[in-house]
Structures are given as structure tokens and as C-alpha cells.
């Protein structure tokens, strides 16, 4: 059989393509391993706190939520008043998917006595950015199969993308470098996950018109339901708490109403302080319109601790 020049061309092309894939694959593995090593070596910063929450955190009380959990639930006050251990596993800007994923890893390791889920206005709103924020969980995808269904909500090709060792650390070079630095240790101070805010709200007072109904995202609602049912199955006492907002609200946020309704279905205690006048008339207790400051946290934490009784 004669070998033509076109056969040679195809053979050459395939060999070159294979060589390209081989070089790319090896580089991806090597660089990915390096990034992984230094990602998990971090001792401070938001990614470090996530790693701690997912891999190690274990306490009688576990707090979940976004910045309104991180900045508002003071672990020290809970420990002192209730005589138990407490850890705040919240992360800035994260939606309910993240909280649910972290809960799953916590439940895989053990069973806290009590879980607090911080609820925000607009938690169930249609917002594509919420899916983007699942990115924070990518580095844990391989070693934590329990969070994979949550990570895969990010997009239809997530499984495929995760074949790369580098992809989970996309855009994380700088956070990895700073997370391994002394500077970061001084900058990201926390008390078992709680980060206090010292500033005082100086306005202006914003008006939120909740009377205009917005569509809700059923995927987020399902994640919220799953959070509740997983706690019930694991026999973890659950409190869902909506801390105060320093706003002029017209009506009640639809997400909060829906969350309250679902909590009632499962007989879960829902403490709604979102429009509590004992806070909303006192700007000195707020750092900004969404977050209580240190003084506000003291007052608010004491109020809710009075309503919490841990079942033995």
C-alpha cells in the first residue's frame, strides 16, 4: 500500500495534536497541584475561612449565612451566654447554595446541637450572580463528593471543566499569595469566623419598596428546603434568623415571607427582626443599612440568645 503525502499530513497533524494535548495536560496537572498546595496552605483570608468551615469546623452551634451572618453573630457572646462552643461558617456575599454545601460537609463530620441560618432580604430573588458565587466551592469539589450536586448547579459544563486541575483555582493566584502572607493574617482578624464592624451608620436612609413583587428562584428555594430537611434528618435544632435592616421598608420582602412560610411548614423557628422598630430607629447600632455594628451585635445577640434553648 502506498503512503500518500496527504496521509503523512494527517499523521503529522494527529501527532502534533497529541503532543499539544500531552504538554497541556502535564502543565495543567503540575500547575494545578502547585496551586492546590498553596491554596490549602493559607492561614488567613476568606478562602482560608471556607477551608476551615468545610474541613474542620466543629462546634455545638454552627452559624451559616452571608455577610449578615459573618458580621452579626458573635461567637464569643453565644459561647459565654450558652456555655457551648460556637463557630461562624458564613462567607461574604454567598447565597443559600454555599450555606447548604457547607452544612453538608459539617454534617458529614459530625452533628452540631444547633444550627443558625441567617436570612437576607432577596435571598431567593432571581439573580444569576448567585450561581457565579458557587465558584468559592470549586477547590473542594474533588475531595468532597457531598457538595458536587451544589457545585454542578453553577452550569451544565461544570463537571467537564473540573477535569482541569487549574480551573478550580481560576483567578485565585493573588488571593493565594496574600492568604499565605503575614499581611493577610493581620488584616483578616476574626473571632471563630465572626468579624465585627466598628463603624457607625451615617445614612442616608434608603427606601425599599417590597410591594412590587419579584419572581423567586425555585432552585434557591429548593436549596433552602434541603438545608432545613438535612438539619431535621440529622436531628440538628435549626433557627432561621433575619437580623434587622436600617431601611425605610414598604411592605415585606417576598423572599423573607416565603422563607418564613417554608419554615412554618417544617415547624422550624423563624425569628424575623428585619423591620424591628427597636433597631430600625437606632442608626447608632448599625455599620451600614444591612449590618449591625459591634454595639448592635451585642444587643441583638443577647435578644436572640434569650429565645434560644438548646435541647439536650
Amino acid at each position, binding site marked *: 500500500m502506498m503512503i500518500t503525502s496527504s496521509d503523512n499530513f494527517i499523521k503529522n497533524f494527529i501527532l*502534533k495534536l497529541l*503532543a499539544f494535548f500531552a504538554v497541556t495536560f502535564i*502543565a495543567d496537572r503540575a500547575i494545578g497541584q502547585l496551586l492546590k498546595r498553596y491554596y490549602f496552605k493559607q492561614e488567613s483570608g476568606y478562602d482560608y475561612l471556607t477551608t476551615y468551615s468545610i474541613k474542620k469546623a466543629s462546634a455545638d452551634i454552627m452559624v451559616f449565612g452571608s455577610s449578615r451572618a459573618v458580621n452579626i453573630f458573635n461567637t464569643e457572646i453565644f459561647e459565654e451566654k450558652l456555655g457551648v462552643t460556637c463557630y461562624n461558617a458564613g462567607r461574604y456575599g454567598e447565597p443559600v447554595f454555599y450555606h447548604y454545601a457547607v452544612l453538608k460537609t459539617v454534617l458529614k463530620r459530625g452533628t452540631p446541637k444547633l444550627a443558625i441560618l441567617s436570612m437576607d432580604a432577596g435571598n431567593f430573588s432571581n439573580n444569576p450572580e448567585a450561581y457565579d458565587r458557587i465558584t468559592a466551592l470549586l477547590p473542594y469539589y474533588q475531595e468532597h463528593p457531598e457538595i458536587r450536586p451544589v457545585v454542578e448547579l453553577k452550569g451544565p459544563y461544570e463537571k467537564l471543566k473540573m477535569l482541569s486541575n487549574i480551573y478550580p*483555582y*481560576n*483567578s485565585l*493566584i*493573588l488571593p493565594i499569595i496574600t492568604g499565605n502572607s503575614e499581611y493577610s493574617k493581620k488584616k483578616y482578624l476574626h473571632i471563630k469566623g465572626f468579624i465585627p464592624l466598628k463603624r457607625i451608620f451615617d445614612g442616608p436612609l434608603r427606601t425599599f419598596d417590597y410591594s412590587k413583587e419579584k419572581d423567586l428562584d425555585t432552585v434557591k428555594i429548593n436549596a433552602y428546603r434541603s438545608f432545613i430537611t438535612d438539619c431535621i434528618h440529622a436531628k440538628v435544632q435549626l433557627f432561621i434568623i433575619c437580623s434587622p435592616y436600617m431601611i425605610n421598608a414598604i411592605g415585606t420582602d417576598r423572599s423573607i415571607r416565603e422563607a418564613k412560610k417554608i419554615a412554618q411548614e417544617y415547624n422550624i423557628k423563624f425569628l424575623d427582626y428585619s423591620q424591628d422598630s427597636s433597631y430600625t430607629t437606632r442608626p447608632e447600632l448599625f455599620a451600614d443599612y444591612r449590618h449591625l455594628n459591634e454595639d448592635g451585635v451585642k444587643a441583638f445577640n443577647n435578644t436572640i440568645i434569650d429565645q434560644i434553648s438548646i435541647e439536650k
Partner: protein
Amino acid sequence: MGFDLMANFKRPIFAKSTGEFWKRWHISLSTGSKIICISLCGSKGTRNRTFINIMVVFTISGLWHGANWTYIIWGGINGFYLVFAMLTKTIRDRFNQFIGLTRFPRVQLFWQIFITFMLITFSRVFFRARTFDDAILVIKKMMTFKGSIFNDGVAILIYSFFAIGFLLAVEFKKEFYKGSFTLSQHKNFWVRNSYYSLLVILIILLGVFDGGQFIYFQF
């Protein structure tokens, strides 16, 4: 396909004067503006008439971008740059000679590019701002050391510098060192191959796959 399209941008960042900048930036629009200018006063109009026409053309060019005072001011500033440059050319040339800048052509080149870039960037404050007040606020903030240099976090600042530096290096090479980028056309197959792989790796490492990546979330 038989179409011969004109180049619309020719590395304007390396322009040595605002006049040259407009020969390199949005060339199709600049050519159109030049035609308007010539049709207004002919190619041999008086000096004063030329100045007036430049101002008219740049004001119209501002309006062409949008019906807002900020665009008109932007156009006015750029027109003023050209008029000022023409009026002061002799004085500036003499001054450069006097301080000895002309004896160091590379330093002079860098200086001219730097000044042009600063002038153009300043005028763009008005182009970019939503209102005149916003533009004034931006300019005021330029003059103060109070407040954070970049509110969206250090990570974005560093990534931006990295990306700008990379693009600048490419433009710099094209402007001052003509010829192909050798790594992609290197004779050695493995060098070429590794270069292509590096590009793929960089895309996976730094590319934006969704809104959640690259952007540093604060809250």
C-alpha cells in the same frame, strides 16, 4: 474577499502629539472630520479660520458621541489641545532646544508620548463621566491623597496592571520592533507547542468563565 478596509486604530497610545493621536485613533471618524474641516474653510484658509473650524469640528464630534454637555466639553478640550499645539509649536520647539531635550531623542520621544497620553486621558474624564458634576468630582479626587486608591480591591488593581502591562508590551513591540512574535512561529516544534499550551493554561488560570471569577467579591 476582495474588500480592502482601512485600519481604524494604529496604536494611538504611542502618539507623540494630540494631532498625531487623532491620525491614529478612530481613523475613519477623524478622516471624516478632516473632510468636514476642509469643506468648511478649504485647505488654504486663514490661521484663525482654521482654529475656529477645528473647534467647531471637535464640538460636533463630541455631539456625535452623545447629546450631553460632557461630550461637548470633551470635544472642546481636544479642539483646544490642537489649537494650543499649533499656536505654541515654535515656542515649545525653542524651549526643548534650550533645555537640551532635543539632544536626547529617546527621552524626548518618551516625554512627548507621556504628555500626549496624560492630556488625552484627562479629556476622557469628561467623556466617561455621566454628568459634568461627576467629571469635576473625579478631577477633584485626582488632586487628593485622601481615600482608597481603588475601591474594588487590590486584586483587581494588580490584575489590571498585569493585563495592561501585557497589552502594552504587545503594542510596544509592534510599534518599535517590527516583525513577527517569534515564539508562535519558532522553528522548534516543542517551543511552538509549549507556547500554545501556555496560552491555554493562561486562559484557564486567568480567563473569565463567568461573572463570579476574576471579579473580587466584597459583599
